[in-house]
């Protein structure tokens, strides 16, 4: 049974609500005024709500506000209809509007309860404020750290760079610091994100890429010296590469630092040269003796021969013997001269891959004869080194000679105090680890006072009397061995025969002779 709208709105048969109020104007006014005020107020609330939602687009559950607005408009409408029905008995219409209000209220109330847990979960402004404060603190700390580290990166004189290892294994520059940009004449912005091969000159790329590859493949920190052509000329860098790995252990980044050691190298070479001359000076006395011996033999035999020739008593066999002796003696002198000549050379030759045993051998040969005169024996033991090392052979020889000379001085000093000594043992062997060569020089000169042992590599430290030692020998030796990537140590040892002495141990990193990684000095 359908009821038409006309019939629904048909007011006939009803009396206006005002009748119930007996049309008393005071009561009518009270109702009208109250309902109108309530209605107007209710109507203004959704406007405010919508305005709020519109302005604060990030409000959570904004649709809830719209539901509230609908519910309040419906409520407001019922109040206006209450005024209307005071005079016009549209109770059906009023009922319908109340029905709509009921649904809106129900929906809003239900939604409100349904949302309650989530609304409670929303952070309160106080909580937000606290977390904001914490965040601000965090940001400030991070800013400070950032400033500190970027200060390091941007202000250090050392050349710093970050190389990214790309998924295909190639390398790209991630960042370089201003120092490197300045030294290398590079533009940090142009370099960023570019592959190394595209970013720098081919010659430079050929030098650095094998290093990056070595770091990437070994996953270990490596350091080396390299001579690079820079806008400011040729510079020597001591470069260190540190791999950065991801969780899977793959090298994803390489941190690099390069220290310009050109000046230090030059000074070092100058000091080495000075000490070489000083060593040469102390060797000069020995050399004079060495040279005078063959010269003496030559003079004696030629005078001999000449005298016999004058007296017509020279047999051809005797003449031949004399001449052969003379030739032998000139050869002996020639070797000595060659050695001294090489020793005095300024550049000392470039960096080479060489067998250290050969160096030790020629050092032994240079002094063996001279020492034998002083009843000091040089005993060679364990000549089993297979590995080669990288450096300048003559410098290593200089270090060994210096050790011999110290050993000799210790032996002579011990003898002067009535002790028995006269044996220097020298050994060259591969370290059992297979990566380094060990050279040991052991004397029986009584050892070094343990109190001064830590100082013996210090420049100008000497235990010898004034005029006997410059105090530079061991410190220069230390510098040379350090420059070769090795180390030199000294300790007192008790010898088999009951004596005591000092043992110097030089450990040098081994180099495969076939290494493509050969270094050449361009100096």
């Amino acid at each position: 049974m359908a009821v038409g709208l006309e019939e629904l709105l048909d007011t006939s048969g009803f009396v206006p609500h005002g009748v119930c109020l007996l049309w008393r104007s005071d009561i009518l006014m009270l109702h009208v005024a109250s309902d109108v005020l309530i209605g107007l107020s209710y109507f203004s609330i959704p406007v405010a709500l919508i305005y709020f939602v519109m302005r604060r687009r990030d409000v959570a559950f904004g649709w809830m506000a719209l539901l509230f607005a609908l519910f309040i408009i419906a409520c407001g409408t019922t109040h206006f209809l209450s005024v209307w029905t005071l005079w016009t008995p549209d109770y059906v219409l009023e009922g319908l509007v109340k029905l709509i209000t009921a649904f809106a209220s129900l929906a809003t109330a239900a939604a409100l309860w349904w949302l309650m847990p989530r609304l409670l979960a929303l952070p309160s402004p106080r909580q937000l404020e606290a977390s904001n404060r914490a965040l601000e603190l965090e940001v400030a700390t991070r800013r400070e750290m950032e400033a500190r580290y970027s200060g390091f990166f941007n202000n250090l004189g050392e050349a710093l760079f970050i190389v990214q290892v790309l998924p295909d294994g190639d390398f790209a520059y991630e960042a370089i610091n201003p120092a490197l940009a300045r030294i290398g004449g590079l533009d940090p912005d142009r370099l960023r994100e570019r592959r190394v091969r595209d970013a720098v000159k081919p010659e430079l790329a050929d030098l650095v890429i094998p290093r990056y590859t070595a770091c990437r493949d070994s996953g270990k920190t490596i350091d080396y010296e390299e001579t690079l052509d820079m806008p400011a000329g040729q510079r020597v860098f001591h470069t260190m590469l540190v791999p950065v790995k991801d969780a899977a252990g793959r090298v994803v980044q390489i941190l690099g630092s390069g220290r310009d050691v050109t000046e230090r190298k030059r000074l070092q070479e100058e000091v080495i040269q000075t000490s070489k001359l000083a060593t040469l000076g102390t060797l000069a006395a020995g050399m004079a003796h060495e040279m005078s011996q063959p010269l003496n033999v030559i003079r004696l035999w030629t005078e001999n021969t000449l005298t016999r020739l004058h007296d017509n008593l020279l047999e051809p066999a005797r003449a031949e013997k004399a001449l052969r002796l003379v030739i032998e003696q000139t050869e002996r002198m020639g070797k000595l001269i060659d050695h001294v000549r090489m020793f005095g050379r300024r550049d000392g030759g470039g960096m080479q891959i060489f067998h250290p045993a050969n160096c030790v051998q020629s050092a032994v040969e240079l002094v063996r004869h001279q020492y034998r005169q002083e009843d000091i024996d040089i005993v060679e033991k364990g000549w089993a080194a297979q590995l080669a090392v990288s450096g300048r052979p003559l410098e290593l020889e200089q270090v060994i000679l210096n050790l011999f000379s110290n050993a000799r001085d210790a032996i002579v000093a011990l003898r002067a105090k009535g002790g028995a000594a006269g044996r220097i043992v020298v050994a060259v062997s591969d370290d059992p680890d297979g990566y380094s060569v060990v050279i040991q020089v052991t004397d029986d000169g009584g050892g070094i006072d343990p109190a001064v042992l830590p100082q013996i590599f210090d420049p100008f430290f000497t235990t010898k009397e004034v005029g006997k030692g410059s105090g530079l020998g061991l410190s220069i030796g230390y510098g040379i061995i350090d420059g070769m990537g090795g180390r030199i140590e000294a300790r007192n040892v008790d010898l088999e025969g009951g004596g005591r002495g000092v043992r110097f141990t030089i450990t040098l990193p081994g180099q495969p002779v076939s290494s493509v990684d050969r270094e050449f000095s361009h100096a």
Partner: protein
Amino acid sequence: MPDRFHILIAEDEVLAAMALEDFLSFKGFRVTVAANGVEALERYASERVHALVTDLRMPRMDGETLIREIRDRDATLPVVVMTGYLTEDSDLKQERWKPLEIFSKPVNPRTICTTLHRMLGITLEA
């Protein structure tokens, strides 16, 4: 020449000793060679020696010790020193070691010979 003056040579360099021995023998001396100071002192103790020709740097007793030992026994034995070292400040230059002459290597054997003649008071007929 008064027959057979005996010269003791102390020199560790065999070839030099051999040549000097040959030269001095050729010039009429009787020559004995010792390879070091100890050996030379033994020879000196066992034989009559008229002069000593010695090197300074030798294994087993150097020349200076040898001369000291000999001067303790004979203050007038002529000594000729042959040395490869600079001897400007050598103690051997002192008067008390005389009769002693020092020559730097390489030495001229004729000079050694005439020095020995002079020190031994030998005059040669022209």
